[in-house]
């Protein structure tokens, strides 16, 4: 009878190709689309793909830290984004659901085209880097995944200004780095601490998402009751 860890390992070994495709597609999608209702579910899939790729390198149970921490972080982010949208809706501003239902066809093609070109450049650079500068200890697909996530993360951090988009960029950068670093030091300790780091970053970003929307973020009831 297969143990859970063995099952995970077999799944990870058999799903390398699909995991890599999922990783690349999800990274591209997050760069192209800036609507949290679409982006955050796709990020969950991305964390699953990262977890599957990591499961080949060390203890598969420890590799679960990443998708678990990522999913918790994304839940927190979605709660914050929903609250921020509620506040914006009260002020009569455009929110994610509306933008999804009624896309702005005048601005959208230009924005998408620009991001698609950027994305194509990142994809090319990631392919080139994976071939020309292979990371020590990593396989080719791992290198490609790592470079892809790091590149997309940097692009988001550099071009977006909303906390949610910058935050997803930071989270992608951390995931990409983890893919690059785990072959060098396949330690459960590092993996656990990186998962903890993901959670802390997620909490900080959730706070900033609320601040972006000017929602009441004071945790102190005294300051709320002030004149």
């Amino acid at each position: 009878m297969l143990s859970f860890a063995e099952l995970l390992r077999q799944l990870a070994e058999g799903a390398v190709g699909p995991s890599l495709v999922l990783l690349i597609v999800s990274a591209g999608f997050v760069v192209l689309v800036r609507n949290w209702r679409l982006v955050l579910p796709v990020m969950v899939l991305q964390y699953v793909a990262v977890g599957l790729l990591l499961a080949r390198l060390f203890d598969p149970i420890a590799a679960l830290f990443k998708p678990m921490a990522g999913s918790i972080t994304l839940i927190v982010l979605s709660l914050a984004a929903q609250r921020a949208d509620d506040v914006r809706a009260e002020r009569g501003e455009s929110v994610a659901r509306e933008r999804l239902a009624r896309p702005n066809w005048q601005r959208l093609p230009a924005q998408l085209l620009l991001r698609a070109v950027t994305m194509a450049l990142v994809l090319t650079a990631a392919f080139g880097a994976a071939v020309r500068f292979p990371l020590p200890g990593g396989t080719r697909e791992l290198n490609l995944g790592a470079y892809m996530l790091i590149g997309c993360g940097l692009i988001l951090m550099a071009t977006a200004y909303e906390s949610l988009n910058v935050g997803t960029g930071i989270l992608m950068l951390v995931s990409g780095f983890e893919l690059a670093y785990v072959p060098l030091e396949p330690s459960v300790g590092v993996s656990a601490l990186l998962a903890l780091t993901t959670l802390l970053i997620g909490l900080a970003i959730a706070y900033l998402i609320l601040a972006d929307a000017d929602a009441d973020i004071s945790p102190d009831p005294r300051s709320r009751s002030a004149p």
Partner: protein
Amino acid sequence: MIPGAPLVVLIPLMSGAAIFVLRRWIRAEAVVAALLCLLISALIIFVPTTPLPIVPGANVAISLDAPLEVLGRTLRVQPEDRALLGLLFIAAALLFLLSWRVPQGSLFVPLGLMALAALVAAPLVSPFLYAALAFEAAAAFAVLMIQAERGGERSTLGALRYLIAVTLAMPLLLLAGWVIDSASVPSPVDAASAESTYGAAAILLLISFGLLLGAIPIFTWIHPVVHDAPPLVAAFLTAVGIGAASFLLMKLLQAYLWLRLIPLFSQSLIAGGLVMIAFGGVLAWAQGSFSRLLACAVFVEVGCLLLNLGSASQAGAEAVAFSLPARALALGTFGLGVWRLRAARNSDDFVAVRGLRDVWGGLALGIGGLSLAGLPGTLGFVSRWLTIQAYGLSDPESLALLSFAQISIGVGLVRGLSAMFQQSDPELVGDLSRSETLDLGWANRIPVYPARTPATAPTVIGIVGIVNPLSDVLSRLRQQLDERLPVAAGAVALVVLGLWPEPLAWLAKAAAQHFLFSP
């Protein structure tokens, strides 16, 4: 045997969490936090190296330098860490004390303690790989402190920039650790072999520490953080945060001979320091707000820090250690002045504060700013003097650059103060007197002081009912005392310690005595 290292980290962490939960009932949280930091500092510095029994009769003792294994890494307070950690706690305590009655956001004290716990953990980890994760954890706490309770589109720039800078530094530090661990030549004896074996690690360390210290690229996070964050939060990050990073770099320089053998490393530190000083100097005199002036002063401080580290000498280590509390006190006192301006005029721009004539604000800005400018008779002068001694008097161009930068800060300060004490702009005063309260999130909506008499007659809005004249006078006196005490304490401390710096100098010497930088 209880190892001391986890206590040094866990006590501030748990205290921060406790204050966070109990802050509704703890009124003097800043004083509690400051006393706790001072107590930990005294224990770290003065507790003997022999195990200290905590329960008489029972075999339970605390050993400060006993190691603790955590996830394959060692956490340990080594002899050279004691004074450095003590200084970190003292700097944090000074800033907590200055924040008493000067609200910096309801999360400053609890999250400050938690960030401090992460920052002190960084130099204790051996090898230093996990220090990167400690800095990242500290950054996550710092983001909440920087943002405080402010909101609005684009209000998160400073917090995001800081988070991005530290997040970019983290992988580079971890990779540098891996390069060092996997090096084929364990202890090179000449520059060529050191460079060929550890060149990549040296470059990774340079970039990662450059990001942490705000030196690479210039203007990444220092300017937006100082502009966006409550002033004492900015002082905390630029004093304690940068201090912890500089102590870790100093320890690495002491531990790794190859880092001193590679000329690129020390030359880059010195070049980076000079560039920071030049930028700070060129920009400071022309700034139009006190927070931007503060950011330029931080550039010069970081520049001096890099010069001291680049000298890789015991005198440099002493200057690095001394500069930490000096920087905390000067930035904190200056920050109090900025806070008063923002509370009164919702801005610290020279134009906005024209005619404010707040004597106590002016005192805080004046003494704090002059200390940052290194004026003789202030604590900042002693710090600069130690830098000049460490860097050497043989490079007159660099010393002239440093002097120019300090004069430039002084000119910027005089411009700001002269605007503040100029005739007020009637239109602006009219606008301000019409407003009721200024929404300064972090300042818990402070009542606005009328522009003509800003600090002498605070107008508390919304007082309803009959007021007992005596209690009114007493409460007004108390409020004035509360507002002025931190300013007076900061200014007096800067001058007294400038004239009699022996206590801090003793600590700095104790910290530096272990850093001989010899093989």
